[in-house]
C-alpha cells in the first residue's frame, strides 16, 4: 500500500491526473535566480465555469505542502480536497458563481515542473539540478497559465500561508490583473524564526542517507525518514500549545502506563509519527527543500528598496487580510505590517483577526467567523464588479 502510494505520487509528478499546460521553448519561465526554466509545465484544477466576460475567475494559491486538488479527492491519498470547507457550490467560494482555478506551484511535485519532474536534457529527474524557485517565479508561472486560459483580470487571488505570499506577490507585481486579494495567515516576509524551522526540516531531509545528495529518484531510494522528521517538526508549528493540550494533553497511546522506553507512549507522539508517515507517501523530499527555500527567500519589502508600502503604491486592488490569534508561525503582527503598508499606500483594505486556538492551520479548518468574513468580502466585491450570483 505504502509503496504503491509512493509510486503513484511519482507518476503524478510527470503525468498528473489534472489538466496540464505545457510551455515549450518559445515560452520560457524567467527565474529570479537569473536562469530560465524551459520547457516547463503547470498542472491545475478548475471548478465552476467562466462567465461571458471572463470576469468571475478566482485563483486559489496553495500552501507549502498543498496542491491543486482544492475540492476534489486527492489522486494519491484519496482524501477530500484541502479546502472543501470553503470551496464548492453555495460555499464561501461559490463554484456556482465563480470560476475557480488552482495550480500546482512550480517546484512542487503534483504535476507542475519541480525537482521530481524529468529533466528533458538528461531524461532523468531534475533533483537538485532544478534552479532554486522563488514565490515570484511561482506567480509568473501562474500568470502564464491565466494568459493561457484567456483571462485578463482575476476577480480574486486568495490563499493562506505560502499561498498568501503568492497573493501578495500577485497584488504587488500584477496589480492591474487582480481586482481583489485575500492573503490569509501570512506575511510579507519569512521571519528568522520561520527560516530556522525550515532549516531544521531541510537538515533532517539531507541527513537521511537515502536522500543520496538529492539523487534518490535515480537510485530508486526514498528518504522517507528524514522527510517524516521534517514534517513532524513543521506540523508542531502549524498548531498551538492550547490546541495540542486540548486535543492530546498528556494522554497515553493505547496503554495504561509509561513503558520506560522510547515507543510512542504519548498520543501526541503517535499523532506526529502518523503525520510524518502519511506525508512522505505523497510528497517529494526535494520539493520540500525547494518550497521551504522559496518561502525563506520571500521578502516583498526587499523587492521594493526595503519599503513595503512601495510594493502597493497606487494599487486599485481591494484587500482583505486575515490572521488568527493563536498563529505563532505568521502572527497577527505580520499581517498588521502588511495592513499598515496598504493603509500608507492608500489601498482599500479590510483586516480581520479571527479568535481561535487552532494555530496556523486554522485557515484550513471550519472557522465560521473566518468564513463569514471572506464570504462577506467576496459577495460585496462581486456585487460591485457586477458578477451575478
Amino acid at each position, binding site marked *: 500500500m505504502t509503496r504503491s502510494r509512493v509510486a503513484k505520487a511519482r507518476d503524478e509528478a510527470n503525468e498528473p491526473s489534472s489538466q496540464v499546460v505545457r510551455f515549450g521553448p518559445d515560452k520560457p519561465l524567467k527565474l529570479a535566480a537569473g536562469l530560465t526554466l524551459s520547457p516547463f509545465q503547470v498542472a491545475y484544477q478548475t471548478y465552476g465555469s467562466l462567465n461571458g466576460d471572463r470576469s468571475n475567475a478566482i485563483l486559489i494559491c496553495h500552501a507549502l505542502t498543498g496542491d491543486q486538488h482544492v475540492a476534489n479527492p486527492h489522486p494519491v491519498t484519496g482524501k477530500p480536497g484541502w479546502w472543501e470547507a470553503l470551496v464548492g457550490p453555495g460555499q464561501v467560494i461559490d463554484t456556482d458563481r465563480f470560476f475557480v482555478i488552482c495550480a500546482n506551484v512550480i517546484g512542487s511535485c503534483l504535476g507542475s515542473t519541480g525537482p521530481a519532474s524529468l529533466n528533458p536534457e538528461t531524461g532523468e529527474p531534475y533533483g537538485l539540478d532544478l534552479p532554486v524557485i522563488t514565490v515570484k517565479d511561482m506567480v509568473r508561472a501562474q500568470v502564464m497559465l491565466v494568459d493561457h486560459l484567456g483571462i485578463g483580470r482575476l476577480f480574486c487571488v486568495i490563499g493562506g500561508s505560502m499561498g498568501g505570499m503568492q497573493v501578495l506577490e500577485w497584488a504587488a507585481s500584477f496589480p492591474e490583473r487582480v481586482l481583489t486579494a485575500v492573503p490569509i495567515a501570512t506575511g510579507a516576509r519569512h521571519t528568522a524564526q520561520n527560516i530556522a524551522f525550515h532549516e531544521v526540516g531541510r537538515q533532517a531531509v539531507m541527513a537521511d542517507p537515502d536522500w543520496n545528495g538529492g539523487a534518490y529518484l535515480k537510485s530508486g531510494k526514498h528518504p522517507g525518514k528524514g522527510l517524516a522528521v521534517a514534517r513532524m517538526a513543521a506540523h508542531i508549528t502549524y498548531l498551538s500549545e492550547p490546541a495540542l493540550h486540548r486535543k492530546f494533553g498528556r494522554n497515553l497511546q493505547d496503554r495504561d502506563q509509561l513503558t520506560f522506553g522510547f515507543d510512542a507512549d504519548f498520543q501526541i507522539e503517535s499523532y506526529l509519527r502518523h503525520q510524518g508517515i502519511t506525508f512522505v507517501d505523497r510528497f517529494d523530499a526535494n520539493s520540500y527543500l525547494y518550497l521551504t527555500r522559496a518561502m525563506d527567500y520571500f521578502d516583498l519589502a526587499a523587492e521594493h528598496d526595503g519599503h513595503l508600502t512601495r510594493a502597493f503604491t497606487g494599487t486599485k486592488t481591494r484587500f482583505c487580510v486575515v490572521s488568527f490569534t493563536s498563529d505563532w508561525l505568521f502572527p497577527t503582527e505580520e499581517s498588521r505590517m502588511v*495592513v499598515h503598508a496598504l493603509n500608507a499606500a492608500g489601498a482599500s483594505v*479590510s483586516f*480581520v*483577526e479571527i479568535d481561535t486556538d487552532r494555530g496556523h492551520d486554522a485557515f484550513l479548518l471550519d472557522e465560521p467567523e473566518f468564513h463569514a468574513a471572506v*464570504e462577506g468580502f467576496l459577495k460585496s466585491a462581486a456585487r460591485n464588479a457586477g458578477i451575478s450570483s
Partner: protein
Amino acid sequence: MSVNNTQRVDLQVIADLIRPGARVLDVGSGDGALLELLEGHRKVDGRGLEISQRGVNECVARGLSVVQGDADRDLVFYPDRGFDYVVLSQTLQATHNPRAVLEELLRIGDRAIVSFPNFGHWRVRLSLLFKGRMPVTKDLPYSWYDTPNIHFCTIRDFVALCEEIGATVESAAALDANGQKIGLSMPWWFWNFFGQQAVFLLKR
C-alpha cells in the same frame, strides 16, 4: 434613512456634513452603521478603523473596508491628506490621548468630523451636584470603574483644545437626545448646558 440608535443620534448629522463621493475614514467604526449609511446614500469611498474584533468582523462580513486597529496606535500609519474627511464618532472620549488623536485626524484628513457626548450637559451637572456620584445616564450607561470612556470633556473643553492645537471650527452643532440640532445660533454656554452630543467639523 434615519438611525434609530439613541446612542448614535449623531450619525445623520455627520452624514449631512459629508460631500457625496468623498474619501472617508471612519475611526471607531463600530458595527459599520455610519459607513453603511455613507456608502449607501453618499456614495463615498469609505474605510474604517475599529478596535473590537467583533465590530471589524461584522463590518467585513457586510462588505465594508474596515481594519482592526487602535486609534491611539495605528493612525500614524495613514498618509497625510489621504482622505477628504476623517470621522471620529463617539470615540474621542475612549482614546488614551485625545489630543494626539485629534492632531492625527487633522493630518490625515482635509477635514475632521468629531462627535462626542457632552459632559457639560445639565443632567450630568445635576447628577454630580445633587447625588455626588459619577453620572450614569441613558447616554452614558457605564459605571466609573468599567467605562471605556476615560477622557470625557464638555463642549467648552473641546473648543479650548481646538484652539490650543490650531484647529479651525468650520461648523458645530449641539444635539438633543433625539439627534435634533438645538438652538442653532446660541452661544457656547447654552450648547454646553443643553447639548447631549456635539458634532464638530474641523480643519487645519
